[in-house]
Every structure is written in C-alpha cells, then in structure tokens.
C-alpha cells in the first residue's frame, strides 16, 4: 500500500520540480522588484518631504494591515475591472514585493546626498539581516499564489494529494522542498546578525 503510494509519488516528480521551479522563479523576480521598490520608498520616506512620508506611511500600513491572501484576491479580481488584465503569474509577482518596504524603512535612511557615500554602506549592514529574513517570508508567502491557480510547490502538493490520498507524506515532501530553499537563508540571516552584533561589540548570550 505504502509502496504503491511511493511509486505514484515518484511518478509525479517532474510536476514537483516544475512547482519548485515556479516557487523559486516567482520568489526571485519578486525579491528583486521588492528590494528596489522597498529601497526607493524607504529613501523617499526619510527624504524630508512630510506629505510624501505620510503617504508612504499610510501605504505601508495598508499593506501590513491586510492579509496577503486578500491582497492577492484584490489584485487578481479587481484590476481587470480597471481594464488591466494580468495573468496569474504577473498578479502573483505584483503582490509579493510590497511587504519588503519595511526592511528598507527599518534602517532609518537619511538624505540622498549623504546617502551613497555614508549612509547606504553602513545602513546596508543593519538592513541586511532583516532583509534576508524578509526574503524567507517572501518565499513562504509565495505559497499563497496557489490560491489563484499558479502551479507552485504548494499547489503541486494540493494536486498530488487528490491522486495519492496520503496528506502526511505529500505535504511532508512539500515542506522539505521549502525547507531546502528557506533554511540556508535563515542560517545566513543568523550569521549576518551575529557578525553585525560582534562588530558593534555586543555580547552574545
């Protein structure tokens, strides 16, 4: 019985690979776009213009205050009403990056002139650990795009479990897939944090 299921699962490994590929590609694109957007907004917010920083602050609250699933549904279902037709893939990407603003904001960046020479290089050291942590969140959040029908790793698990009725095994394997991608990043974030802590002369307890 179990052996039979194993064979059936082994048969669906191309699908699983495609799902993992989708998860990685989607995350990578979102990661690049999100980082750019986040840094841009973060720099603008601390740029000195009060109106701009209030607007960006409100936008960040709007994003942070609503579930990602709801944001995905909004983009996927409502943009078409404005005549903007996105396929699921683009909708998925559009909605992922916004969460990243925080990491850039957390750094307390200063004016543009001082930015490049003084602030950015130093801020980078402070931003990097939470930024990497945010990337882990992003990869995990990308699982939510399965709800609008993208065949990512989670959706593959959902599809396979309809054929192979062993939810424990199937989603254990899905979990292993994510773990392989995310765990190295978590370790990296920890190392960066420790290194920066050491550079600041803090004592690790």
């Amino acid at each position: 019985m179990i052996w039979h299921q194993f064979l059936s699962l082994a048969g669906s490994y191309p699908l699983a690979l495609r799902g993992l590929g989708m998860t990685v590609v989607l995350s990578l694109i979102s990661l690049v776009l999100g980082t750019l957007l986040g840094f841009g907004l973060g720099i603008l917010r601390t740029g000195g213009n009060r109106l701009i920083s209030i607007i960006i602050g409100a936008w960040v609250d709007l994003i942070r205050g609503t579930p990602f699933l709801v944001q995905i549904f909004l983009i996927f279902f409502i943009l078409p009403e404005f005549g903007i037709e996105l396929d699921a893939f683009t909708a998925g990407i559009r909605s992922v990056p916004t969460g990243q603003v925080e990491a850039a904001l957390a750094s307390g960046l200063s004016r543009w002139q001082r930015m490049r020479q003084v602030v950015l290089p130093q801020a980078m050291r402070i931003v990097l650990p939470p930024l990497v942590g945010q990337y882990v969140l992003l990869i995990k959040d990308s699982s939510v795009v399965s709800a609008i029908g993208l065949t990512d790793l989670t959706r593959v698990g959902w599809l396979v479990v309809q054929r192979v009725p062993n939810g424990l095994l199937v989603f254990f394997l899905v979990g292993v897939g994510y773990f392989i991608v995310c765990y190295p990043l978590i370790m990296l974030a920890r190392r960066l944090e420790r290194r920066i802590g050491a550079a600041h002369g803090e004592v690790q307890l």
Partner: protein
Amino acid sequence: MLENFSFRTIVEYLPLFGQGLVTTVWLSALSFVGALIVGIVLCAMNLQRGWLFRAPAKAYIDAVRATPLLAQLYFLYFGLPRLGFVLPELVVGIIALSLNSGAYIAEIIRAGILSIPRGQVEASVASGMTYVQRMRLVVLPQAFKVTIPPLLGQAIVLVKDSALLSLISVAELTRAGQLLASDRFMPAEGFLTIAAFYLLLYYCIKGLAVLSSRWLGTAGARA
C-alpha cells in the same frame, strides 16, 4: 471600472461580514492563547542545558520557520484524517495557527529572557535564590516587558494568517468576501470590504501596542 460599485450589496451582506469578523476575532484569540502555550513550552525546552529537550525544540522551530503556513495547514488538513483524527476544519485551522505561531512566540520569549543582563542572573544566584525565585522575581518580570511589543506584532501576523483558513473553507472574514465575490460576481465589493475590516483589526492591535508601550514605559520609570 468601479462605477457600479454597489454599497447596497455590501450593506445587504453586512450580517455575513459581521459573522466572519466575529469568527476571525475569536478564532485568532483562541489560536493566540494556544500559541502562547506552545511557545512557552518550546522556549522552556529550548533553554534547557541538555540536548534531549533542546534538540527537538530547535528542530521544530526551524521546521516551522522554514516552511509556509499554507503547506503546514494542508499537512494537517489532509494528514490528520489519515492518523484517524477527523476534526472540523475550524479546529484544524486553530491547531495549525497555534502550532505555527507558537514557534515564533518561543523565539520572542527566548529573546526576552536572554535580554536580561547576565550580571543580574549571577547576582541572584550569588544571593542564594532558587531557580524558581530567580525566574519569578528577577528574570520574568523584566522579560515580560520586553516581549509584549513583539508579541502584539505576532498577534497582528496571526490575525492576517487566519485568512488562509478560508482556503480550507472555514467561515471566517475572508470566506465572507469570497462568498460575496462568487455569489454575486462582486469581487471588488467583497474583498475591499474585508480589507477594511482587517485594517480595523490591525489598527486596534496597533493601538494596543502603543498603549502598552506607554504603560510599560511608565511602569519602568516607577520601578
């Protein structure tokens, strides 16, 4: 465009949204209590000296943090019946949220306890306090203060995460939006309304965080 945005339909569906909101609030509250229990147990295991308790706690925390909640939710949803536990979706959802948030809360509490300067711990050991006295009188009261803000942050995350339970058809807030979207083909009305409700919850918890930090600040000044 949204020119035929129907406020009337939203009002018509208001009882449904209300029910969804109430469900979201109490299931999040219940899951938060569950997560606190899971977190405290995990943290206690993680702070032990021997690896016997530490290793499983660490492995569990890493496994939860490196995998998406949705995959964990499906794992329990499709997996529990296989182990002979046929539970209502709502219960599965609360279990999943508790187990997930518990791992994060364990780390928050741990950071709080470790933030107490080592000298204080040594001083209380030197003055002959037992482990329980040391924890109760020195470490925990201070750690409590440090952990409240991140715990409220985790509460916000939990409320937002609870939206995923709609995908296993728990009748909470997001589900109400989905129903309006699919019954009447009005996704804008459905999802914008629930987004507003989530924002309301977000600002409530955020306000609580501001209040608590003010209260804890004065408490700190008095001490």
